[in-house]
């Protein structure tokens, strides 16, 4: 699971192409397409040290067009799964 990218969902019917998500992303991982934001895949964000999860794009979106989903785990579980898939 730790190898699977978890990109946010974009509701293109809500997106007004305001571009705030592009400005907010510290990884510069978002660009604006014709119908909404497009997310590329930085390995690790140089600004925050995380890979996909700061959620700034979701927070700044005034139209609720971007949604991240998360599962909630203890860090020990992440370590066990990483070992089992190594």
């Amino acid at each position: 699971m730790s190898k699977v990218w978890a990109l946010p969902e974009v509701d293109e019917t809500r997106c007004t192409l305001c571009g705030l998500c592009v400005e907010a992303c510290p990884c510069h991982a978002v660009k604006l397409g014709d119908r909404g934001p497009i997310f590329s895949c930085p390995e690790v964000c140089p600004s925050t040290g995380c890979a996909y999860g700061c959620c700034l794009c979701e927070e700044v979106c005034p139209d609720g067009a971007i949604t991240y989903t998360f599962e909630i785990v203890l860090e020990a579980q992440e370590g066990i799964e990483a070992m089992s898939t190594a």
Partner: protein
Amino acid sequence: MATTVQKPSQLPFFAQLGEDDLLEIAPYIHERTFSPGQMIISEGEPCQAVYFVVQGLVRTRRLSLDGREQVLAYLGPDEPFNLVPALDGGPNLASVDAVTKTMLYTIPCQRFHLIMRHHHQVALAVLERLAAEVRRLSDMVEDLALHTVRTRLARFLLAHAEGTQPPKRWTQEEIAGQIGTVREMVGRTLRAFAMAGLIRRQRGRIMLVDRGRLEREATGG
């Protein structure tokens, strides 16, 4: 589409009944399936039935006029809902929708009331279930009224990481509905937890990094 269920003894409350009693009840139990996101019952509408989750996950919630919601519970297999209207004849207490593809068994409200009157074991089992529900809702009221969003969020994260709740993926909006706040507050508080080193958000996961400190947050300390 409803089909008659073959094994009423599988339902909670009926495990103590004998074969003859189960045969008497069976014709009134129906099976229904729902797609993810499909509404099952609406708050305030007349009670049609008592429901039992057989497969899948449902969500019970109350809605305000301005669209805010408070999730009361996520219910999985073997859990019933809509018992209260069957008892008091009032309207549905909450709206319920299917989170995943869901199969339910249903018994019409009036028939369920009759079953309880004729079978004291069923009535006792229902009372025990409602007593547990009163405890749980009392804890929820205390949480919402007396604790901060930080405390409620810490408790929520711990409960779901430890597997004491049905597993699912969460949006910030859903977390807000669960802990009685708005999405923006959840986002802000998660960010504060991340900056304080209590959690890390990465690749579709919220990882609880410092469980000890989160547990202190969860007690309001």
